[in-house]
């Protein structure tokens, strides 16, 4: 169709043509014009089909408040077709198309679209190449991620250079290697093999080998076995192990390769613990690691007679106090997945009330043979992907583009539906074989503890709120440890700290935090601990501190240095309770912080992370 404005323009052009060509006949001018018009309207007709025209219209319409631009771009990336994505890509490539933040995010969303929906912007994408060498580190990383997800082979060489460049930051190196892994063409594969050579730093080797698993499993297994045999227990082997766990024949091949090159005892032990902690007990690898670590092989599930005997022994000999200590041991990693009174991991069921509904032998079976009975919410699904990956986790939700699962580490993993070859029902994420780190007596204690949870007595559901999840400052500053800090120091070094500066520790079920587990090899060790409460309705809250150690308490910035029991009025919102404790040489130093609602108080509060 031709509207009034266009018609006017036509007329102007017509006159101009006549002007230019002077004496040429009107007819010719009109012909030329119509030819041009025809061409134009053709371009208009070829306007690419939009998958999500309403959103795109909004994006291009100029009515959108700037703060909502991000949401709209994300929607286009999540749902648009290649032409829609092109619009976003063009804007990303425009120097001032977006704010820096939105530009980076948009590149992330385009990466996501390529990964989950297998879709990339239409047309030539080489423009992005310029950003791979950008001076802005964040932009460079985002560009590498995006271009390698699009599998633009041409960048392989540059990525290899970046991976080994002296000046490159570890993050850049890491991203560059990831890029090579994503491109996955022969050239990238060769580059990864070169990066995995034994003269390279071990972190680069490990990452490269992890990437090679999908491309050349046999070579990767041989290289990995070599790395394991040379690694020390300080090296972080998790990513490398994961790569083998996530491949169809990964752990078997790795086990085969390890036959000739066994890892050192402590490396094997660490690998084994990691394997179990992510819910894997693959027979061959578990066997060879156990052998290298010098510990027992996997036992078959117990016979009924053995269970019966265990039940009797749990009831007569099991000690719940010792059992709790075992439950908390890091090598068994129970708390990595399970919580009690909300304190602990969220991968497996909360165990607060487990003893209330489950008989002892149910508990024993659940430890020794976790696949015997799996509650509906914790049934896993196993996804075999076209690239050889095999991913296991509990289903969160799904649509036609993607499936979301929670894996053994509690991490949310998104899988593109297009990549799924096969999906089958899996078993529990709870690993079989964990108990080989336990003596029989320890197993009895652990089972006793678990079967007491939620029963009336020492392990009943908590009635008085206590701080169950503390966080402890990893590297407290000198001014915090040397002496009782000034309030300004507290403000600077504690209250303005970052999340990463802390690590979580959990009180026992009874609310007591055993401080021995936190000693840093010094006596006294000065610890900065913090609990968090959320006040929902203002009012008086009582605090009482139980500990024989020297300590100081601050609620937000208010100091209660010498008081072990006090009340304070709190307004709605979140409040920190900071404790500085000097852990003495006492045999079992402890800390317990109880909260209460004084008579007549109107306060309503919740302890964050468990109470």
């Amino acid at each position, binding site marked *: 169709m031709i509207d009034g404005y266009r018609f006017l323009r036509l007329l102007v052009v017509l006159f101009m043509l006549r002007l230019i060509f002077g004496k040429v006949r009107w007819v010719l001018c009109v012909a030329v014009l119509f030819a041009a018009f025809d061409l134009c309207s053709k371009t208009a007709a070829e306007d690419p089909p939009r998958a999500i025209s309403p959103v795109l219209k909004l994006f291009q319409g100029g009515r959108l408040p700037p703060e909502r631009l991000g949401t709209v771009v994300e929607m286009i990336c999540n749902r648009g077709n290649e032409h829609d994505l092109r619009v976003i890509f063009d804007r990303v490539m425009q120097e001032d198309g977006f704010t820096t933040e939105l530009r980076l995010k948009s590149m992330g969303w385009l990466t996501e679209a390529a990964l989950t929906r297998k879709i990339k912007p239409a047309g030539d994408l080489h423009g992005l190449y310029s950003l791979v060498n950008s001076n802005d580190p964040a932009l460079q990383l985002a560009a590498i991620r995006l271009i390698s997800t699009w599998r633009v082979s041409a960048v392989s060489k540059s990525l290899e250079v970046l991976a080994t460049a002296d000046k490159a930051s570890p993050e850049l190196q890491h991203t560059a290697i990831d890029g090579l892994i994503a491109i996955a063409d022969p050239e990238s594969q060769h580059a990864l093999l070169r990066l995995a050579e034994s003269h390279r730093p071990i972190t680069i080797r490990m990452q490269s080998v992890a990437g090679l698993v999908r491309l050349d499993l046999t070579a990767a297994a041989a290289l990995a076995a070599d790395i394991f045999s040379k690694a020390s227990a300080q090296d972080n082997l998790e990513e490398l192990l994961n790569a083998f766990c996530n491949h169809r024949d990964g752990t078997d091949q790795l086990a085969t390769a390890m036959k000739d090159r066994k890892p050192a005892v402590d490396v094997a032990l660490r690998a084994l613990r990691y394997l179990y902690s992510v819910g894997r007990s693959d027979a061959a690898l578990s066997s060879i690691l156990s052998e290298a670590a010098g510990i027992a092989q996997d036992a078959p599930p117990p016979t009924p007679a053995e269970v019966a005997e265990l039940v009797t022994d749990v009831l007569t000999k099991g000690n719940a106090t010792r059992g709790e200590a075992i439950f908390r041991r890091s090598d068994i990693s129970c708390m990595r997945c399970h919580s009690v009174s909300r304190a602990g991991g969220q991968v497996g069921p909360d165990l607060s009330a487990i003893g209330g509904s489950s008989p002892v032998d149910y508990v024993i079976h659940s430890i020794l043979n976790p696949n015997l009975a799996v509650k509906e919410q914790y049934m896993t699904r196993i996804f075999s992907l076209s690239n050889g990956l095999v991913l296991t986790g509990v289903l969160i939700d799904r649509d036609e583009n993607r499936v979301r699962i929670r894996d053994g580490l509690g991490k949310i993993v998104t899988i593109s539906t297009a990549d799924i070859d096969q999906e089958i029902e899996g078993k529990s994420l709870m690993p079989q074989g964990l108990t080989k780190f336990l003596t029989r007596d320890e197993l009895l204690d652990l089972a006793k503890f678990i079967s007491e949870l939620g029963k009336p007595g020492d392990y009943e559901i908590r009635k008085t709120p206590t701080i169950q999840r503390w966080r402890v400052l990893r590297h407290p500053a000198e001014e915090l440890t040397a002496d009782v800090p000034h309030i300004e120091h507290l403000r600077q070094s504690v209250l303005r700290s970052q999340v990463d500066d802390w690590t979580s520790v959990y009180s026992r079920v009874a609310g007591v935090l055993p401080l021995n587990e936190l000693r840093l090899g010094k006596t006294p060790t000065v610890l900065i601990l913090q609990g968090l409460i959320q006040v929902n309705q203002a009012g008086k809250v009582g605090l009482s501190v139980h500990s024989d150690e020297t300590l100081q308490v601050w609620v937000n910035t208010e100091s209660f240095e010498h008081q072990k029991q006090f009340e304070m009025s709190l307004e709605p919102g979140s409040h920190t309770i900071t404790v500085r404790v000097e852990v003495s040489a006492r045999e079992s130093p402890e800390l317990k912080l109880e909260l209460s609602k004084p008579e007549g108080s109107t306060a*309503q509060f919740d302890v964050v992370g468990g109470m």
Partner: protein
Amino acid sequence: MNALPQKIPLRILCFLAVLLVFQWPSAAEALRLQKGDHICIVGNTLAERMQHYGWLETLIHARFPQQELVFRNLGYSADEIDGFKNPQHRMRSMDFGTFDQWLTGSAPIPQEGKKLSTRDQEPGTVSEDRFRLTNTRADVIFAFYGYGESYAGEAGLPVFRQNVEDFIKHILAQKYNGRSAPQLVLFSPIAQEFLIDPNLPSQSDIDAANVRLKMYAETMCDVAATYGVIFVDLFVPAQSYYNDNLKRPLHKNWTTNGIHQTVCGDWHIACVAMKSLFPDFVNPANEGRGDEAIRTTVLDKNTYWYQRYRVTDGYSTYGERAFLKFAEGPGGYGEGLSNYSVGQRELEVIDTLVTNRDKVIWAVAQGNPTKPDDSQLPQLLNVISNTPGTQPDGKHVFLSGEAAISKMTIHRGMQVQCFADESQFPELISPVQMAFDTRGRLWVATWPTYPHWKPTTPRNDRLLIIEDTNDDGRADKCTTFAGELHNITGFEFWNNGVLLAQGPDIVFLQDTNGDDKYDVQERVLHGLDTADTHHTANSFTLDAGGAMYFQEGTFHQTQIETPWGPTRRVSNGAVFRYEPRTQKLDVYASFGFANPHGHVFDRWGQDIVVDGTGAQTYHGLMFSGDIDFPQKHGRPPQVYPQRTRPCSAIEILSSSHFSEEHRGNLLVNNVIGFQGILQYRLTERESSLGAIEVDPIVASTDPNFRPSDVETAPDGTIYFTDWQNPIIGHMQHNLRDPSRNKTYGRVYRVLAEGRPRIKPALIFGEPIERLLNLLKDPDDRVRHRARIELSGRPTDQVIASVSRWLTTFKGHEQDHEHHLTEALWLYQSHNVIDQELLKQVLRSPDSKARAAGTRVLAYWRDRVDNPLELLRQQVHDESARVRLQAVWALSFFRGAAAEKASEIAVESLLEAEDDYLKHLLNETNKTLDRRMKQFQEQSKK
């Protein structure tokens, strides 16, 4: 292409062609029944309902008394003809048995029998063939299909034709009886019936449906003729009956809702079938009264067969959890009996009961009436508890209803009283849901057969009315409104009666003569899965607009026919929405629940749904936008992070008997570990809902205490039931563990100390004007019961009164906007559209009213002018809640309207957003994107 070799003479080719034509069976043969033939009925809800009325079976037995025929009805709500090869058109829970296994009467132990215990494997414990006694082994198959399929319309005919062909070929290639191919009789769908009811599909809807159904019936006829299969046309006779029926003075309908036969319809369908199958058949006189004796025996047999074929708790009888095995004696898991061996033996008992009743039918048909001889039943397997109690005989210790109060910690300023227990009313066992009727009386559904009926024991789940006639706080009268029920997982009052779960059905019961015992019973919904009975249709609740909701959990595969459109299907967890007045049924929330157990609507119609297993609470709006099967909603943010689990029921405490701090709070029952009722204060959180925990109402240390339901009573107190079970859990103990409670059950009430109880509002039988004034009451349950009472009053009177009532409103009246909204809900409940009132509420000064109006608009979208323009206005509302509700409402548009709806939905981005709006907008757009794409593809065709 050179197809014919030159040398073959043309004459020979012609001869061959003629031969071919003659070889091809061109006309259907007549049905020939041999002595002892097994006739299996397969098909959709029409087939399923036949077993409950039994006329076709009866007439065939009456005609062939000496043939001793065996009927097994394998009809199943909403099955389609390609179900034998397409599991989405024959949805079943795990290991139900395939189409062919059922017809053959033979199926191995599922999952290759790997998981049986040593005890199960003792000789004579488990049969290798789990269908060996079903007596199906079909010689003859009656197949009823085509209703659900017809919604694919003309465009779907080629596929349907192919499916009918495939079905016929498949059946004729089988030897279900082990000897020969079965005789197949294909039945067409009946025509859809126009019923004179403004709430059911209109004449033009029906005409359109019948154009469709006719095409499908003709296609079936056509294909049947091609293959020489006997075809019975029900369509044309149905239509001509309907046409004549309207002219009769005392006309009787064939159907209850246009598609599902009444007993009268069943009789006529049987007669039509008989005439078609046996041309010399003459309709029996007196509407078959002479055959009533046979029919009684047929129905008795079918009652047992229904329990066999549709055995409830299938997931634990033959599915995954059938293979859990338990210790016999103290312990848990062991090599003792599994659920499978115990459950299968029960099925063999039912099979035998059914077979014994076949003989009774023959005897009666032959004129020698007899009683069933059940003296030789297979022995049930005796289950020994893996969690015996401390008593010498292994029994658990139970406190009395009164004494158990001493184990309770009660909120300060509150007091608990025992209202009723089993010592006074022995029938009060395992109460599962309760509700107060419009007379203020407490009704309790009891479940002694939990987890499901065990053959040879009474099937005695009941709906009880428990009253305190002298108002002393203790019940003194208990009436059984309905007994001999099975798995009443939920109920709700409506239209002078009660809607009740009887998985796999929902039934409507009514007492018409005022003796407090039901005398009308009608199955209104079919096809609810019962794979795990405590995941079956539960937590019944009505919204203010008169729709009823119920929920089901994972493992379940439900398919339901409705006169309003294609079959509703859903897998693994859903909330349903059912309008009893219009009989519309939809999946309200298709979501990956474990086992939803609790649903409440607040004062303004916002709802909270709780997933019982993990006790996660969700704002209903966040996952109840429209979505097309098999898609499910993404996981939305929770209302609050739960601290314990699992939850059995929730309630909003809206009662002026309690002080201000408790009003409007959410009560949450929790049954393991923390055994009591938690309390949360509901708050607005951005566009959605939030909640903060405040002190619990009650917590008990009695290990048997399991609060199963909670509700605000007419006197403003809180009532809660106690299931009283020492063991809980389906994975830890055998389904038939004798420690499961079969004796106890309690009702308690909680009072606020020092505050007067409310004088219960008079509702039952009150004039409409008074009831309307009760809609101004501040307490939610008072208005709820007033609405129930109004649901049973004639629509014209209600609407006339409410329109008068509206004129009496004064603008300055407190809660004026809420009263207006109540009026709108009343229109909605009576299925009468008032666009002016709707528009007034949509632009109310109160944002909560505007949100409520937006919800009504979504359900009226097909009957108001420019619904999308009205929603455009709501999408730009200054209130985030209204925008959220509008984005939700836009998900319901389909076809050509989907694109515009999407355009309007994204316009919401011009206003402030939050995470909830963003989540919901994505959900809505996913649905609309799919529909736009579908529409574009269809338009291209």
